[in-house]
């Protein structure tokens, strides 16, 4: 139990809200990078001694979530010359409200689901991760641009990953690397598709992708 990780977790939540609230894509992506960095630091702070496992995990996380993915997204923006606005379907205020609602719900659930871990571990961890997941969902469903939807997916992913940190010793890191790799490839393909979408529809407005329907 150390205050440092407390603070980091709170920062994670703040990052969530920043993503929800920011009007410019580039801001979203930068916030995402910050969140990735926080996720990279957390394993170090959470586990008492610095083991090789945590080291590898931290570096891997920072590499992928804080550097590679943000770079990829900015590349997509530049290549596709996307207009920089987020263009939400739901206003910022509304989405912020939704976000706080999500946080409340997250805490409610977390109370019902006590971690079967020594008290030394974080009781903030579960609610924060759940909240991040939900806020990711909100971004996914309330933003119009394909790129912002990718951002939302990443936020959601971060939330899950955050929860994964409770399992650092049970899940061998080989797998966590696998997870990171999957996420990376996933987002990479998404990036490519986004690029194609922009070329085909000369806009990233995924709301225009409504040809296929019954």
């Amino acid at each position, binding site marked *: 139990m150390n205050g440092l990780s407390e603070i980091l977790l709170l920062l994670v939540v703040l990052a969530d809200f920043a993503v929800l609230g920011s009007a410019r894509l580039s801001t979203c992506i930068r916030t995402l990078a910050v969140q990735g960095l926080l996720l990279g630091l957390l394993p170090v702070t959470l586990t008492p001694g610095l083991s090789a496992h945590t080291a590898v995990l931290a570096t891997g996380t920072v590499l992928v979530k804080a550097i590679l993915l943000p770079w990829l997204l900015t590349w997509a923006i530049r290549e596709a010359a996307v207009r920089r606005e987020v263009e939400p379907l739901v206003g910022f205020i509304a989405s912020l409200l939704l976000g706080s609602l999500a946080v409340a719900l997250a805490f409610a659930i977390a109370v*019902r*689901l*006590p*971690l*079967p*871990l020594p008290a030394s571990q974080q009781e903030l961890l579960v609610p924060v991760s759940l909240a991040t*997941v939900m806020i990711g*969902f909100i971004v*996914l469903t309330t933003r119009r641009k*394909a790129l912002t*939807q990718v951002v939302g*997916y990443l936020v*959601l*992913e971060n*939330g*899950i990953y955050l*929860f*994964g940190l*409770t*399992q650092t010793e*049970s*899940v*061998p890191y080989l*797998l966590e690397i*696998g*997870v990171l790799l*999957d996420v990376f*490839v*996933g987002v990479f*393909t*998404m990036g490519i*598709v986004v690029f*194609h*979408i922009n070329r*085909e*529809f000369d806009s990233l407005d*995924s709301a225009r*992708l409504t*040809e*296929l329907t*019954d």
Partner: protein
Amino acid sequence: MRLIALWALPALAAALNFAVPRRAARAGRWRVASLVLVAALHLGLVATIWVRPPGPALDDWLAADALGLVVLTLTSVLFFVTSLYTVEFLKRGRRGAARVFVTGLLAFLAAATIVALSHHLALLWVGIEATTLALAPLIFHRHDRRSLEAVWKYLLISSVGIALALLGTFFLATAQHDVGGRPLIVADLVARAGQLHPAWLRAGFLFMLIGFGTKMGLAPMHTWKPDTYGEAPSPVSGLMAGALTSCAFLGVARVTEVAMAAGLDAFVQPVLLGFGMLSLVVAAVFIIGQTDLKRLLAYSSVEHMGLLVLGLGFGGVGAYGSVLHMLNNGLTKGWLFLIAGNVVLATGTSSAAASRGLVRTLPVSGPLLVVGLFAVTGSPPFGLFLSEFTILRAAIAAGHPWTAAAMLLLLAVIFVGMAALILGMALGEAAPGATPIQESRWLVAGPIALAVAVLMLGLYIPAPLRDVLARAATALGGSAP
């Protein structure tokens, strides 16, 4: 050793294919050859597993248990058939598409094999995510707006779903905390199921169900399915509807296995039944008045996924029915999508309005399409009849008469929709001047083989398969009828 070779082989082949540049001289033929070769080797290896089962590998991360073996065999057979089909299919397609196509297929085979063999739930997750990604480029095969939209929806919805499955996996790991036993190894989870932390186990089950359910295409997470199957090249759709869904179902089955072992039946079954019935309803709604053959098949796949989880939900012989149904449905879907592919190759579209009198113009595929209608709607004497009938018996035995009645009603409605569309395409007077087409052997061999297999499974189940199915059923807390 074989367990490793099974996925390493296609993985290497995939890497090799990707390494060879697109414009390499006469590469296309070699790619296809390698594809067929790998498929054949894979099938051979799987056969040896039936003859002499190998022990677990990598400290129990990989093992070929009954359930996994069924999925593995199904995948391998479908893949082999598809590879044969690809030989002719790629010839007709865009030049230079072979590289991505073959690489994707092989990568898919590797990933699916890992899923089928893995007894480590996190590894299983990695495998399934890998299958998702491996097939994404193939959906984009046609490089047009529609396929682009399809692949985008497919990617986003299934990535979200699969992410939730990961969360569920973590929950399960949490539930296993201070229970001991190797983390997320199925065998240990089942062995110690009683001591798992109930709340986290429940949560884990629910989220994995949602996640893998998304990949299976259970309503309401099915929405990517019609678009994807409709736009993807038919052999790819066939692989997805036959093999990929089965892999996802394996994920659901594994966690159900754990939950059942923990005695959570009362908690698990209502959820499964709910998703099952909802899927049937959605399928029925969209099959009525459907206008496109491949989208029709997609919804039929939603229907059958619903039946699978219904079988699990009823328990008892239902579990046996589910596993058998997974096998039958996989084979039948492969068969029908390949036929749909032939229709598209012949008429240029899968829209029902465009084709009439296929039984005359496509002397092999046309009749096979009609037969397939009866097979996929669970008419005797085809395999799906047996499995659906078994699931129905389970429903009655488990005391769900009204669920059973609703299920039958929906099946009837679905039959009307499918019959109306397929018979409308197959019968009637073909367009004036349309003459019977000499169909390529490569394109019809696979469907014929699958049809024979499905018919056989309806009349006779060989002893080894019988006992594998029985073991799988008992693993899922059910029993053999």
